[in-house]
């Protein structure tokens, strides 16, 4: 008398086989998130529409009262800020997914299974990048509808999109780290609230030159501002090229800031992940 059996796949032995398993597992975990989109399209659509709503709010409700230093359309000034803000808001999505899985015991189930442990995190990252990529595409289309355009070369435009996704990639690890750190879904609300001032304390919505001196300096050095200035420059949108060092070197900072975030949060996230066994 035995339980009806199933032929058990052999364990990987060579490093190459192990790598293939890790990649296959990561893709399966990613596929799980894509299946969520199909099974619950309303959540996906609402998330996409949320950023569109923010654009319309700032573009049309407050936009009339805004002037861009050096002239130019406020909505063209605004859109790069919105793109970067949507990358920042992605931290919440990552965090919610990580804490929900941990709280429901799904993470433990994965860890007790003969799958590649790295795949849980890698799959999360790929799924979030796809999600943010889709969100960015919708936002770009929304920008075109409200009168935003890019004026740079195709290479510059692609570079700008690349910089935005590079920021998101770094923030994936912030989300995973925080998600593993807080462990209960209620604490996510605190982060959701903190993300707003963090996002607004930048040049996303208003030029830093219009802020009180010290606040402007903080906003100028916000990693988000670097990406926004750099993308304004690459898209050829108004509002870039201030006199400060940070403004002058926006392109460099837009590459370096996410690298620094990665350097800090990637090891932290891995460490947290390993600490689950302690």
């Amino acid at each position, binding site marked *: 008398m035995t*339980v*009806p059996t199933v032929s058990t796949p052999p364990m990987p032995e060579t490093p190459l086989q192990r790598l293939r398993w890790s990649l296959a597992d990561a893709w399966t975990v990613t*596929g799980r998130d894509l299946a969520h989109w199909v099974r619950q399209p309303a959540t996906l659509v609402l998330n996409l529409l949320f950023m569109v709503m923010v654009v319309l709010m700032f573009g049309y409700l407050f936009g009339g009262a805004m002037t861009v230093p050096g002239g130019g359309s406020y909505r063209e000034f605004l859109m790069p800020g919105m793109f970067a803000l949507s990358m920042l808001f992605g931290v919440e999505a990552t965090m919610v997914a990580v804490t929900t899985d941990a709280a*429901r015991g799904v993470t433990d189930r994965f860890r007790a299974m003969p799958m590649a442990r790295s795949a849980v995190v890698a799959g999360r990252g790929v799924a979030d990048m796809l999600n943010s990529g889709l969100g960015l595409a919708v936002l770009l289309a929304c920008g075109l509808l409200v009168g935003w355009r890019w004026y740079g070369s195709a290479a510059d435009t692609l570079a700008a999109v690349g910089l935005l996704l590079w920021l998101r990639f770094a923030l994936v690890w912030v989300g995973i780290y925080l998600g593993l750190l807080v462990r209960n879904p209620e604490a996510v609300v605190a982060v959701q609230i903190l993300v707003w001032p963090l996002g607004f304390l930048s040049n996303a919505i208003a030029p830093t030159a219009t802020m009180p001196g010290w606040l402007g300096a903080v906003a100028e050095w916000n990693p988000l501002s670097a990406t926004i200035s750099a993308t304004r420059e690459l898209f050829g949108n108004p509002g870039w090229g201030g006199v400060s060092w940070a403004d002058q070197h926006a392109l460099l900072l837009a590459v370096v800031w996410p690298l620094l975030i990665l350097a800090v949060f990637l090891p932290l996230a891995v460490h947290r992940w390993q600490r689950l066994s302690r």
Partner: protein
Amino acid sequence: MATLPVLAEGLRKRYGPENALDGFDLAVPEGSVCGLLGPNGAGKTTAVRILATLLRPDGGQARVAGFDVVRQAAQVRYRIGLLGQHAAVDEVLGGRQNLVLFGRLHHLGAVAAGRRADELLERFGLGEVGGKLVKQYSGGMRRRLDLAASLILAPPVLFLDEPTTGLDPRGRNEVWEAVRALVAGGTTVLLTTQYLDEADQLADRISVIDHGRVIAEGSPDQLKSRLGGDRIDVVVHRADQLAATAAILGRAAGSGAEAEADPDTRRVSVPVRDRVAALTEAAWALRDAGVAVEDVALRRPTLDEVFLHLTGHPTETADERPQEVTA
């Protein structure tokens, strides 16, 4: 005895000043169900998490299905199923989708994973709801899906960590039935529970755990006879009749045990040997003595009484647990 499916020797695990496990020993023979019984914070979950390779022990060693849980964790994971305290399934996916996902992560091919999912859905009576979102499942259905998901590779060893906590009686019965069927098929099961009746229903052997170590071990019958089996509770109307009632119940019990009287609740309680004879005898004697009785109940010992009896201290939750170890 190297072939014991679950073998733990002197496991230790500390969390800060707290000893979650303090010399935990356990041996589960093949094809049996071992119930790990204890209050919150006794170390049940820590023990299961170590055995299921989720947690590294600070000391001691454990082998599951013949493999060391620390050094050969990958081999262990091939041979175990784990049912944690929550139904660890994806609520935004369908039941079948969940099983296919977990099948793929066990490296079954797409076709084999699909076939296995259908087999398991059928087996756990979920065939008709396989396409529905898990969100719409009842608690019992979720738990059965959870159980199916931990059986993808038909593991020889299954860990169930409080499998029926939070379920209604119907859901609890559904899970019990499913576990019994598995055991009939030869799976070795380690089950943790806070409920004496659950261990009673499912387990061949029970290990009682307190403060991170096993303090008593035996078949459910052996443990219960150590406690004096069933009890009669009598609540009297007048507190001044407590002493007389205790004397009457002591004689009627036939177990040689003394009745305990609690003046606050006006309740007298005594373990009995022969349930029916003792109850009849007590009822007659109480009426003859003119005791005004408010309530009479014949009941099984509670986990609290098991603990009081075995450890000399009542059950505590993890938060209220004192630092000193009394056992």
